[in-house]
């Protein structure tokens, strides 16, 4: 059974919806700017990919009472999931009797609120506003988003660090293949917060300048935030439009180190190989790879080496879109799935911003210009996370 993608939705630093994102991608307009969203020692200094709307604006757009305490992770997720849900015309398809599921990936859930609670709680156990801690767990944002869409047949959350969104998509496809559900909205959401910002800073892999994925001069990543969801359907459903098939998904664990990738890229290689194998595809059939490409010395070396080992001297079009959005952690698998499907639907290749010099070692040269009217039939999207959790999705034209 094949799985069709019938709707997409996204919010990130480069746009509050798909249309805005496409415009920014075409205009080579990055969303990376100095931190402004919350109080922090990094405010005004560290470049990040903030969604250009604060919580009040997001709530207003979603017609939620501003007095309600809702995590930013949930607000971003609602925004993107609602767009995908509407894009697939699901609000008008209630009479089809579809069993619909919602599977969301997130790396820190409602931490953007928890960190406020905890600061007060540290002063005294009796302190801290409880409404700022009840959304701490990862399931909270998922349930709030699902409830908004009226989904209750199956709701769950995946958390495998930076591959969470991709793994939610893989899990969603399996549920449809096995007849457990007819339709799944899958992807991921994560909000910027002090916890992750300082966490990545403590690892010394945050660049103080705009990130330069796959460039020799790269110094690290810029953190981002956002959400991206796609609507997966049984091929026999009566979906009104389609973006492509989800041909294959691979999830592996490199089992090498808690944070580092093996420099030769063994895990990345296995993930891409397994996806090709699952989709019964040859390397030459891949037209474009949306790289994980975070801009850290380790990832871009390992991922690039793996691509060289798999694709040899003539790799397909390559680009990382993280110089646009920043690294959106649990959301990037979802956001980049949306970008991959747009590439197929409109024949696009997105530029890898800030690239000038290939990495000595693998020498890969990503696309640096926005490409239109390209023959993009099959796209690979990589998402690699801490703990060696590495995933690859492959989408193809109908």
């Amino acid at each position, binding site marked *: 059974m094949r799985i069709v993608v019938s709707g997409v939705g996204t919010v990130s630093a480069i746009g509050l919806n798909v249309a805005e994102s496409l415009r920014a991608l075409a205009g080579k307009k990055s969303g990376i700017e100095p931190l402004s969203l919350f109080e*922090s*020692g990094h405010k005004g200094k560290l470049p990040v990919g903030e969604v250009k709307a604060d919580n009040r604006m997001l709530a207003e757009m979603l017609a939620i009472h501003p007095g309600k305490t809702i995590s930013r992770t949930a607000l971003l997720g609602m925004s993107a999931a609602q767009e995908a849900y509407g894009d697939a015309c699901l609000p008008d398809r209630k009479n089809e009797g579809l069993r619909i599921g919602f599977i969301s990936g997130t*790396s820190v*859930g409602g931490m953007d609120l*928890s*960190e406020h609670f*905890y600061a007060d*709680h*540290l002063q005294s*156990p*009796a302190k801290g506003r*409880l409404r700022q*801690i*009840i959304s*701490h*767990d*990862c*399931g909270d944002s*998922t*349930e709030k988003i*699902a409830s908004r869409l009226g989904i*209750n*047949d*199956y*709701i*769950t*959350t*995946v*958390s*495998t*660090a930076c591959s969470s969104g991709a*793994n939610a998509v893989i*899990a969603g496809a*399996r*549920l449809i*293949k*096995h007849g*457990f559900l007819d339709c799944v909205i899958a992807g991921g959401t994560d909000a910027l917060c*002090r*916890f992750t910002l*300082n*966490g990545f*800073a*403590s*690892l010394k892999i945050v660049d103080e300048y705009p990130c330069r994925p796959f460039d020799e001069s790269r110094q690290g990543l810029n953190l981002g935030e956002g959400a991206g969801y796609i609507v997966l359907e049984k091929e026999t459903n009566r979906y009104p439009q389609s973006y492509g098939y989800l041909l294959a998904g691979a*999830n*592996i*664990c*490199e*089992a*090498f*180190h*808690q*944070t580092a990738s093996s420099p030769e890229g063994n*895990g990345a290689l296995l993930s891409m190989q397994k996806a090709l194998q699952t989709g019964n595809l040859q390397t030459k059939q891949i037209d474009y790879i949306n790289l994980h490409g975070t801009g850290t010395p380790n990832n871009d070396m390992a991922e690039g080496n793996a691509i060289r080992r798999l694709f040899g001297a003539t790799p397909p079009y390559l680009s990382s879109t993280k110089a646009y959005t920043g690294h959106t952690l649990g959301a990037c698998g979802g956001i980049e799935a949306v970008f991959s499907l747009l590439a197929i639907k409109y024949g696009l290749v997105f530029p890898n911003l800030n690239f000038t010099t290939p990495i000595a070692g693998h020498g890969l040269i990503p696309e640096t210009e926005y490409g239109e009217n390209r023959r993009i039939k099959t796209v690979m999207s990589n998402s690699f*996370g*801490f*703990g*060696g*959790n590495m995933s690859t999705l492959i989408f193809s034209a109908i």
Partner: protein
Amino acid sequence: MKETIYITGASSITPLLPQKPSPYTYTAQDIPPCTYTETIRSACKEPDYKAYITDPAARRRMSRVVKMGLTAALQCLSGAGEMPGAIITATGLGCLSDTEKFLRTLIENKEELLNPTPFIQSTFNTVGSQIAISTKNMAYNNTYVHRGVSFESALLDGMMMLAGGEAESVLVGSYEELTATSFDIQSRLGFFRKGGKAGEGAQFFLLSAKEKSPCILRDLAFAFQPTPDELLEKAADFLLKNKVQKADIEMLISGDGGNEEEFTFYDKIEKNFPETQVVKYKHLTGDYQTVSSFALWLGTQIMGKADSPKKILIYNHFRNINHTFILLESRFDK
């Protein structure tokens, strides 16, 4: 599930230390009767982790819950022949103590001089990843983190992988730790106002579609925020789908832990099976997001004898919102 899925291994680190080392020797009589004591928290009786995680270099960064989860996984895998084709973990709140440690330093040091180790270890996939690293297993690796359905989501994923031939055996398990902060918060939220207690634990299972065992994992079902009547309907549909009569269910493992505010649904289900022996366990384990994995562990221990119940139904809900059913079948060869 159309395919028969066997539980070929099970382990538990829990406040109730398993008294019997050999599996399939429990009966309902072995479970201490439900007595609600004054203590409202249950802490795990932990084994000597050094005996399982032998490499001090690997062990040094692990928090208590990582050791607990990894050890339960290794206990479950000991004696298993082949490497599982998937590692699927579940947790409601993940590696809480490291999360708190990083948050505390972040706040106290005003974002300066932060140790990266607790941040690294705070991610929800830490245990799944550590199992992969310590057993050198590059297979499918996923972590579910959704309140009261975390464990069942992992179980469903694993069962589908077996049914679809994506793996021949899968390791599925859950882990949860109770920290002072989480206990404080739960208390302040009034979770134990009308009974019940907080708990923790780690349980792991090896599932196989190939290797047989006395315990068959037949199916599972979910309900999100149902009314009591919708829940009964769900239970009826679940039995029908699996061609099981109410009277066939010889044992019901009920998640009732003495919390009055959560009793309505348990009462509905228990009364729905008037002929069925009801077994309860939360007075031993306390309640936590992934506690139903303990119910499953208990089920596996009771199965497999001549006089074992032929069919066991496990019912649990978390805070009246996430409801789950698990159906077990005993397979006894003379």
